[in-house]
Structure formats: structure tokens, C-alpha cells
């Protein structure tokens, strides 16, 4: 590294003059720094994903079933896979259902998660530790285990939820609304710890002297939150929201394992299960690839608003 004065990119100091033209190799070295910084990540990602992505795209234009998989070659059928999916009414109903499902889940997860993070600031420190440990306990339960616990708690014969609610032998898996409600409860429950801990970490970056200054100015809780805390939290909340949209739209494991294949049919699919059943259970890999690509495009469209806001949130000049 050279001993030239610090560049202006992190701390704009209009007084300093940039050394122009001098020691171009040093400048080239400095200019290459960001590329070197991102190189390892890029390398890891490309070596693993390049072929699978190429494969999925090409498969989506082919007829590729079990027979073709075994023979390692499919036959080109152009856009027929896409056509069959887009003409399938099940696809559109599932899409609508999944959009609503994702919206509800994201709202609940981010809302409740942020509220609990704010609560963490307010409670006594012993309770804060207890709550944080509790949240990590929840977070540490793998999805496959959480599903078993929830199934066990809500089962028809002797589930504890039925007992507590005095509901006798209520079958929580009988109607689509109840099934999706259960999946929502499970996902929100499992998703809150991550949101809370991340937002709480963000709150830790709010400098206390700014909070003190606001208190001295006589600002109430809400104004302090809006003017001091929220701007600092904004990038984090944007990230969390975008991620939640992506994850909740693609929910698969929870619905597949909690509602179970025996109860899943075209009237209660979410996109994740639809993709798995139509593509992989039926071993119609070409169609599965087409659905994967469509899902990707849809998720991109749904989250573009938040993603744009996030990319624009360049705190730096």
C-alpha cells in the first residue's frame, strides 16, 4: 500500500487534492482492490452455480422425463413446457394463493419481530438475556423438527393445543384456510428470532448520544423512533423485508412436511409444493425447470420495489 493521502471516497474532504496521473500502477493497484475483494465470493458462486443454472434453463425447453434422465438426453420442444404451465389454471390459483400467503407472513414476521426487538430495549437486563436465549432456542430448532413439534401439538387425537383451547378433537388439517393458518403460524414463529436479533443488532448501532440529544429536545418515543432510530434501521429493514418476501414466497419444507403429501392437492398448493409435485415427484424435469424459472421471474418482479429502494440506499456519495 502506498503512502498517498487517503482517497476521498469514505470521508469527503473537499480540501484534499487527488494525486492525478502520478504512479499509474499504484492507482491501478488501488483500483483493482474492490475487484480483488469480491473475487473469492464470485469464484465460489460461479463454480457451483454456473452449470446448474445453464442446465435448468436448457431443460425448460426440453421434454425431459425419467426416461430422458436415464439416457442423459432430452428432446427439444421449444416453449411447450412454459405453455402448458401458463395454461394450467392450477398454476394461476396457486400463484395468487402464494402471493397472499407471502404478504401475510412477511407483514407478521417483520412487524412482530421489530416490535419484540424494541421490547428488548425496554425490558430489564435479566429479562433481556432470558428473551434472547429463548429466541435463540427457537431459532436453533431445525425446520424439520419444528414441523414435528407443531404437528405433535396440533394432532387430532391428543394434541395439547386442542386441550388448551378446550376444542375436543378438532382436526386442524381439515380445511385449506386452517392448514395455511398453521403453516403461517409455524413460519412466523420460526422467523421472528432472526428478525428480532438482526434489528436489535441494528438498534445497537444507534449512538446513545443521538438518543440523549433527542430526549433533551423533548422528543416523545414515536418521534425519536421516526427521526433517529428508523433512518438507521432502514437499510436493515429493507433487507429483511426483501429476504422475507423471497423466502416466504418459496416456502416448501414446512408445508410439505406439516400438511403432508396425503393432504396436499391442487386446491391448497403453495408454489414451492407445486414445483416439487409437478416437476420432481412426477419426474417431469423439463416442466419442473420451466416452473423454477417462472418462480424466479415472479419473485424478482414482486421484490423489485424493495430491492431498488435497497440498492438506492447508498449511504455513501
Amino acid at each position: 500500500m502506498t503512502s498517498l493521502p487517503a482517497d476521498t471516497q469514505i470521508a469527503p474532504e473537499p480540501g484534499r487534492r487527488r494525486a492525478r496521473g502520478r504512479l499509474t500502477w499504484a492507482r491501478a493497484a488501488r483500483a483493482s482492490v474492490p475487484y480483488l475483494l469480491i473475487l473469492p465470493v464470485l469464484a465460489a458462486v460461479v463454480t457451483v452455480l454456473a452449470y446448474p443454472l445453464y442446465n435448468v434453463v436448457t431443460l425448460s425447453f426440453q421434454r425431459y422425463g425419467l426416461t430422458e434422465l436415464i439416457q442423459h438426453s432430452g428432446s427439444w420442444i421449444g416453449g411447450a413446457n412454459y405453455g402448458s404451465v401458463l395454461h394450467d389454471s392450477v398454476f394461476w390459483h396457486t400463484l395468487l394463493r402464494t402471493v397472499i400467503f407471502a404478504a401475510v407472513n412477511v407483514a407478521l414476521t417483520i412487524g412482530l419481530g421489530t416490535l419484540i426487538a424494541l421490547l428488548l430495549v425496554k425490558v430489564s437486563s435479566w429479562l433481556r438475556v432470558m428473551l434472547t436465549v429463548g429466541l435463540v432456542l427457537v431459532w436453533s430448532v431445525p425446520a424439520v423438527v419444528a414441523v414435528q413439534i407443531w404437528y405433535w401439538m396440533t394432532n387430532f387425537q391428543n394434541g395439547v393445543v386442542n386441550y388448551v383451547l378446550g376444542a375436543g378433537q378438532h382436526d386442524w388439517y381439515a380445511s385449506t384456510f386452517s392448514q395455511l393458518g398453521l403453516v403461517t403460524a409455524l413460519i412466523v414463529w420460526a422467523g421472528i428470532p432472526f428478525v428480532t436479533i438482526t434489528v436489535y443488532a441494528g438498534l445497537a448501532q444507534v449512538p446513545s448520544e443521538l438518543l440523549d440529544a433527542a430526549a433533551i429536545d423533548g422528543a416523545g418515543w414515536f418521534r425519536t423512533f421516526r427521526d433517529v432510530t428508523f433512518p438507521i434501521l432502514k437499510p436493515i429493514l429493507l433487507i429483511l423485508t426483501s429476504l422475507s418476501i423471497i423466502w416466504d414466497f418459496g416456502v416448501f419444507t414446512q408445508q410439505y412436511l406439516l400438511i403432508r403429501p396425503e393432504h396436499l392437492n391442487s386446491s391448497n398448493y403453495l408454489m414451492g409444493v407445486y414445483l416439487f409435485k409437478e416437476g420432481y415427484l412426477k419426474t417431469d424435469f423439463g416442466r419442473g425447470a420451466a416452473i423454477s424459472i417462472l418462480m424466479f421471474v415472479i419473485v424478482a418482479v414482486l421484490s423489485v420495489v424493495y430491492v431498488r429502494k435497497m440498492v438506492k440506499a447508498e449511504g455513501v456519495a
Partner: protein
Amino acid sequence: MRSAASGRRRRARQTGWNLVGIAVFVVMVFPVYWMVTTALKPDDEINSASPTWFPLDATFSHFREAIAGSDHPYFWNAVVNSLIVVGITVALSMVLAFLAAIALAKYRFSGAKMFVALMIAIQMLPQVGLVIPLYVVLRNYGLTSNSVVLFGLILTYLTFVLPFAVWTLRGFLLGIPKELEEAAMVDGSSRLGAFFRILLPLVAPGLVATSVFVFVTAWNEYIFANVLLLDQSKQTVTVWLSYFTGTSRHTDWGALMAASTVIAVPVILFFLLVQRKMRFGLTAGAVKG
């Protein structure tokens, strides 16, 4: 006079918040509580129609069955395999992601937008649809044979956690108020060195939160581990756990809950280890002013 009344008001408010906190705690932790108590209850209490709230007849037989039972071999192998995979994934991903996050947050370079787009796009990929081609790729690289399959799994996990880690760390870096950075900058120091010495402590809470996420994600991952790890002696804990319910025979709920409890322990330990750094970040932010 004023301070006494406001003191009482403050304490009442504090108690109020604490009550809310306790209520939240009970609701959130109940399923975990149910899991642990089911692991400790004898079989007849597990299956009875009226729930037993507190396991007074606690038994460790389920734990013994889960860890050492002949029906569930390879427990310790699974733990070691998971620790190797997750440990390396967390360490590598934190280093690589932090470097890339610095590049995105603090430098302007052409191709940055594309890189960001790539990081975001990767997270939008439906993983379910990628399992088989990914298996084929790893096989072509020779990473599916027993001796190196864990490396193949690590590479797979890196691919999916790095974009998230980069994205999140970038957010944390952007969230650091500029005044703190400017105030802490020392003249004559090299830029990259400055990043490490100054930004690292400021973004420590963010690093901790992200590393916990990566740890949990990698520890609990199932879809890819299930397909890649065919030999039982190489399987991770989530795959090992799936054998408790995968059989068409008797599901031993007690043993399943016991196994689940045991598997959650390393995650909690990891968090307890790093959560001190989070509080450090809090005070560091204040002192630097």
C-alpha cells in the same frame, strides 16, 4: 418530590414492559419447552390424552435411546460431520463476505451494480429446483465420493449463504453513521488497513448476527445434505434426525424429541459464545463519539 413520583412511574412502566416481555417469552418458547419435556416424559405420558405439563417422572431413557440406541447409529459421526461442515462454512463465509461487503459499501467500481444484482438474484432461486443439477456438477468435480463429500457440501452451502451474508453485511456497513467513521479515521493510514481497524469493531454486532444466521442455516440445512450424503457415516445431524420419522414403522416420539434437543445444543453454545460481542458493539458505538 418530583423524582420520587417519576421514580415510581418509571418502575411501574418497567414492570409493565417486563410483564409483556414475559408473556412474549412464554408464547415463543412453549413449543421448545414442549419438545424438551416430551423428551423427558415416559412413553405413557407422551401418548396420553391429557397433557402432563411438568415431567415429574422424568426419564433419560429417550436420550439414551436416541444417542446410543441400536436403531439410530452414527450419532457422534453426525455431530462431528456437522461441526466440520458448519464451522468451516461460517469461518470462510464471514471472511469472504466481509471483504465483498467492504467493496460494495465503500468503493465505487463498475460492475458493482451487476455484482449486487447477482447476489440478490441467487437468493431468489428456488433451491428445490436446483438439487439434481447441483448433484451432477459436484459429481463432475469429483466431490461426491465419500472421502471428500463434506467439502462438496461446504461449497454448496457457501454458494447459498454468501449472497445473503454479503448483502446483510453491506447493509450494516452502510448503517454506520458517517460521523463515527470520519471521527475515527487517522491520517496517513492505508485505506484497507483503516477498514479493518476501524470498521470491524463498529460492524461487530452485524457480523455476529450474520454469523449466527449462517451457523443456524448450515446446521439445520436438509435438502442438499440429504441428497449429497448417501453414506450414513458421513451424514450431518439433520439427515440423521430424518431417520427417526422416515421409517414406515413406529415413530418413537420420545427419542425424536430427545434427539432434537441434543442437536439444538451446539447452536445455543455458539450463540452464547458470540453474544458478548454484540454488547461490546453497543458500548463501542457510544465511546467512539
